[in-house]
């Protein structure tokens, strides 16, 4: 049974077809890349899957259950987490609080416990803090737990955003250009990190990425979008030499020596 199944997904913005008849099946534990030139509709696909935009037509099934029309927070709670292209951390909060916030649905105390700081509050806070610190430890951020998120170096901010997404214990993780703005050595670490996350947290990963170094290294399957439509799909080495893909990226009439 596929973890995530997208059938005939379309999205119109006025007259613009941002995504047109897009299909995708994610099997458990896969790392799949979603690539394509700028404006191809990749981020729109993420926004449709996570419920930020309403879908024009098509079907999205998560663990064999339709998630169309659910609010973003519901979809997130079901187990689809994401990061953003332009990092969206809770900037003024501490690194720890960025992660702790996401454990929110698992907290077993009410507003009264919160206001009176009852014994149950203390027990639960201790549990959640321990879980969050463990997660930060795995992501090598533990020693910065009390820094404000916005004061982290860029690479750490990206990693914190992934850590925050993982705090929701997702089945599917959507990464939107995780390597954007990173230097080659950071990119190398990122590739390892993505593999590590898949193995350690047992998540299925769908990632958008422009840096071919990441895509070719880490993805087991690629899906190429152009003008909202899938123009190619397959293993990275097949995609690399696909004339349609080259055309989408480089234009017509280009010969690759």
């Amino acid at each position, binding site marked *: 049974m596929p973890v995530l199944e997208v059938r005939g997904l379309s999205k119109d913005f006025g007259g613009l077809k941002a995504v047109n008849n897009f299909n995708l099946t994610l099997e458990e534990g896969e790392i799949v890349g979603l690539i394509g030139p700028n404006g191809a509709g990749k981020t729109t696909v993420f926004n449709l899957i996570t419920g930020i935009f309403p879908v024009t037509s098509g079907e999205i099934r998560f663990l064999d259950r339709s998630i169309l029309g659910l*609010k973003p927070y519901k979809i997130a709670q079901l187990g689809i987490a994401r990061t*953003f292209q332009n990092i969206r951390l809770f900037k003024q909060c*501490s690194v720890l609080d960025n992660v702790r916030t996401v454990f*929110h649905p698992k907290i077993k105390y009410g507003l009264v416990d919160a206001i009176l700081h009852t014994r149950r509050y203390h027990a639960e*806070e201790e549990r959640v803090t321990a879980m969050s610190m463990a997660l930060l430890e795995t992501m090598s951020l533990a020693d910065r737990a009390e*820094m404000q998120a916005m004061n982290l*170096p860029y690479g750490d901010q990206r990693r914190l955003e992934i850590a925050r997404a993982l705090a*929701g214990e997702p089945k599917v993780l959507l990464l939107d250009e995780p390597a954007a703005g990173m230097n080659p050595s950071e990119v190398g670490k990122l590739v390892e990190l993505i593999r590590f996350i898949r193995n350690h947290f047992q998540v299925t990963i769908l990632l958008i990425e422009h840096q071919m170094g990441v895509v070719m290294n880490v993805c087991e399957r690629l899906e190429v979008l152009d003008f909202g439509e899938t123009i190619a799909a397959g293993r990275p080495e097949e995609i690399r030499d696909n004339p349609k893909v080259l055309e989408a990226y480089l234009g017509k009439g280009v010969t690759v020596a």
Partner: protein
Amino acid sequence: MKRKYNQTLVILIGAAVVYGLLKALILTGMIGDYWQLILDEALITTIGALGLSIIYGFNGQFSLGQAAFYGMGAYTAGAITKAYGHGNWVWFAGALIAGTLAGAVVSYLIGRPILRLRSDYLGIATLGFGIIVTVLLNNADKVIPILGGAIGMTGLRHMVGFDLLFLFTVGSIFVVRNFIQSSPGRAVVSIREDEIAADAMGIDTTRYKTMAFVLGGALSGLAGALYAHRYPYLNPSSFDWLQSVNFLLIVVLGGLGSITGTVVTAIGWVFLLEGLRFVLGQQFIDFRGVIYAVLLVVVILLRPQGLFGGKEIGFLRPPSVLKPALRPGKENSHAGIGG
């Protein structure tokens, strides 16, 4: 992660010491009747401003109508005491609860439809709501004569003094701090930081925006209810949009997202306004407006993040969870990419 031992006890002792000092000053006559009146007003304003601090400071929802909840609380509590209470303490307790609930219920009813609006639009909607409430209060005597309408409600009993106000202020500070340092509190703050990200991380933003709005409305309602039992007279003009702006200035000047800032600025603000009355003398009293406007401009120019800029002091600061060895020192807090 070991909590500081008996933090609560230390705070209670601290509060008791402050109380003792102020009380001694009052009893020895160092704080005269007039200044006691100002002190009480400062405490009431603190509670009211804490309400807005939750809504705007911590939840990031721009509200220009906080005085409406304050007024609803004051009029509800005042009417109950005037009509039924007549100085009875049970009725008084009931009036305080009713005033708080009035603030909560009204903020829920108004919050549900308008909280979907963002920033400026929400500001306009809350401003409109505040004006509606003032108009309603001005004409309320046509329906319920006891409310007094534009002339104001008179004949209220002086039932709360410094002691009760101090208790309620400390209590309110505790409630806000405990709330903010809890899981729902973190959800509320995450919405201020980035609503889309909060939504995508599984936070029910509508629910938590409403929660913050209702909690803030309830606190301001409580402040109003206390006001109605401190001063003998309620007038709609005490709860108009200028009062809303007052709360807003306090929260912004203190620094958004800082309980310390709100409390210090609320008290400082009330004393500043009254202090200027003395410094300037009766002839120049009108210059007060100029002076505090200039002060406002200077503070915002020099410290746009507010006096406390989201920082807290003492027990309001969230407890540390790091072992000292792991705590980043100044020299390595900006180290390069780690691990």
